[in-house]
């Protein structure tokens, strides 16, 4: 049992650290003195920085070499993330594209699509967004209603709405899950498309959250024209293609969770300065409970890495870690604000931001309820709940749902 790098991993770490030592002065400053303020400038600077990271081999670590990646494994990705964190420079701007959508195109895209899209994606020249969730299709993603209809000339027309779309306001392309056949059961009638975000009929609107900031968008499609080259993975195969993306999403979140900054040392530091609080039994008890669980998540991450390193699929601990992180951070936010008082809720307070962010994070990437269903069924082997949508054509579902209600 050890937490050490193997000689090969140590050599890779040294190589990454060496590159960062040499280039970190070129990174955009996002926090503290001299930080960039203008949103457009920040995005522009981060695009350039992603290009440099790609040149240095620090972006697309797990991508195959033929597409500009390094052909390495998840452990090297984690080492790279750790070193980027250690150097206190921003990571890649388009983590969604490079982490999830690029790998989906590599798995399911045509040769033309790979040649056209992957290079500019990796270098940050073209940012991507994930157009999956809708107002009525989140946890039940296969219920998407955005409709693509094929025209007589083979082209497609697309109408509908997506939501929770990170980076849509400056993305060049999106990977979009649409319904192409409503007369078959819902998982069978889906198709994946590439959509240019500047196509006529695409409207992006910022979606402000509790904090007042808009980290997500709503995206509207009004009779958008797409040609056949926009299809990814073939007509009717959208669900399988989407599952590939979601698998990479879990890996990306699983390997990057330390980066959220919800750790026990940071929370303890917020309380340690208060002489009364640090001796208060109730404060200590709450802090101890929260911190124990968050420390567990750190070692759960190491267990996940051990499994990946051995070529195994990570166990249930990986999926439950997100529940623990969110639960722990919510409790920590409450505790810290109780100790600090209303100043913790001041406009520029890091705690106000965290407290505002967490209620939404609880549902991000699948609600806590759907996650517990999945783990209860897949890991504990508990029977699923009876479903009303199995084997029923999508077009008939709405009326059935109405009848059941």
């Amino acid at each position: 049992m050890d937490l050490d790098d193997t000689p090969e991993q140590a050599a890779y770490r040294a190589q990454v650290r060496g590159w960062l030592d040499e280039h970190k002065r070129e990174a955009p400053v996002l926090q503290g003195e001299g930080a960039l303020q203008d949103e457009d400038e920040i995005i522009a600077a981060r695009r350039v920085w992603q290009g440099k990271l790609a040149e240095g081999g620090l972006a697309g670590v797990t991508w195959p070499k033929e597409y500009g990646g390094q052909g390495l494994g998840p452990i090297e990705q984690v080492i790279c993330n750790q070193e980027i964190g250690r150097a206190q420079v921003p990571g890649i701007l388009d983590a969604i594209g490079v982490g999830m959508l690029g790998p989906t195109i590599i798995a399911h895209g045509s040769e033309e699509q790979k040649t056209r899209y992957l290079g500019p994606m990796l270098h940050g020249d073209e940012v991507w967004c994930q157009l999956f969730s809708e107002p009525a299709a989140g946890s039940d993603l296969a219920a998407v209603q955005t409709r693509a209809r094929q025209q007589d000339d083979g082209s497609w027309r697309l109408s509908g709405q997506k939501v929770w779309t990170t980076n849509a306001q400056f993305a060049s392309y999106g990977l979009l899950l649409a319904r192409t056949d409503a007369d078959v059961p819902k998982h069978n009638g889906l198709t994946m498309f590439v959509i240019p975000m500047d196509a006529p009929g695409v409207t992006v609107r910022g979606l402000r959250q509790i904090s007042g900031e808009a980290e997500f968008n709503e995206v509207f499609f009004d009779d958008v024209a797409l040609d056949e080259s926009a299809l990814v993975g073939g007509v009717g195969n959208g669900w399988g293609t989407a599952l590939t993306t979601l698998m990479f999403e879990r890996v990306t979140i699983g390997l990057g969770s330390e980066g959220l900054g919800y750790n026990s040392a940071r929370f303890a530091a917020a309380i340690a300065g208060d002489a009364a609080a640090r001796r208060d039994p109730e404060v200590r008890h709450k802090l101890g409970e929260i911190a124990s669980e968050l420390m567990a998540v750190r070692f759960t991450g190491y267990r996940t890495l051990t499994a990946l390193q051995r070529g195994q699929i990570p166990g249930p601990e990986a999926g439950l870690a997100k529940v623990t992180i969110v639960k722990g951070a919510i409790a920590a936010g409450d505790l810290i604000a109780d100790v600090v008082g209303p100043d913790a809720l001041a406009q520029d307070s890091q705690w106000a931001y965290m407290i505002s962010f967490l209620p939404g994070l609880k549902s991000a990437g699948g609600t806590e309820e759907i996650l517990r269903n999945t783990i209860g069924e897949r890991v504990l082997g508990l029977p699923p709940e009876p479903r009303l949508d199995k084997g029923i054509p999508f077009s008939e579902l709405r009326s059935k749902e109405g009848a059941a209600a």
Partner: protein
Amino acid sequence: MNLALSDEQVFLREAARGALSRLPTVEAAREALDGNPDALPDLWPTAREAGWPGLLIDEAHGGAGLDAFDAMLVLGECGRVLAGVALLGHLPATAILSASSPEGDAPGAEQYLADLASGERRAAYLPAQPPDDVHENWSTDPASGFQRGSLPTVGVGGRDLDQNGRVPVSGSFAFVPDAPGADVLIGVAEQGGKPVGVAILAASSPEGDAPGVTIEPVTRYDATRSLGHVTLEDAPAVVLDCPEESLAGAWHLAQSLIAAESLGSVETALDVTVAYAKERHTFGRAIGSYQAVKHALTEVLRQLENGRSLLYYAGWARTGAPGEFPLAASAARSVAGRALDDAARTMISVHGGIGATWEHDAPLYFRRAQLSRRLLGGTAGATDRVAGELLRQAA
């Protein structure tokens, strides 16, 4: 990066499971509560045969030379079947003795360690909490109430009591795991304002005579847990040449062992309850298909997995990062203790009324949870130490 069991560790765990499966430990737990304590099997011969008494003693002294994580694996198996193997008392005691420099003029010290390694003799650890960021002094569990006790003291001026260089120690310890029947008691006493390690022969040792040592067996709620109130009145003690961090380390080791034992009990509680939730039907479907039941069970799994991760942390830290061992072991105890509380209650409630009846096993796991939570400084004490360690580091 390697946080997986080695082949040897898998073997150790499977061998423990096999050895314990041959004994009716769970049934005996119920019978003992019914007024038949003789129903509890003597598990020490099983432990000796498997080499568990010497797990933490080096090979030169006849032990296995293994580390805390290996011991945790064995305790986990004990917890699965509520087996009262006297390791919770024995292993931290051997850790103190192993960390002590043998006295040049103490004949037989080496042999003593070998006897503890083979299980020929059995030791019990006298639990005492090391100081933390709020409490300056060592303290002991009270026999009753909230006020913690202080360490026993080495007699006036620390004068020698006898020709063997032994000194008189007076004081008391409450709810000492595995004290009844132990040959030797090993723990911490205060000598001239400083903590020192002490070893005290108990009456049941082959030497027989143990003046000044009284061990009153006590049973509380869970008959599988052998406990004793220990009173020392000028009891003759050998002062051990043991560094203070190793004395503190024994406390943290005990925390990690009871954590592992608790998680073993959680595993059984979860397995049994999941099986029932699959087979019991209401309103035309298995109750495990209802979200309310499914989510309660995944909550137990969540806490179990967190506890497992912290056992790895504690197991790694004891030798890999000794400065973090107090934090890691306390965190493991905190999470494991709460996991067992929740698992035992969930076990009862998912089983419905039957889960709260005498014939069912659920009450036995519930009893184990209730008592464990309040031993060795308590789950809450470990939780407080997690906060204390972090606040100290942050300051």
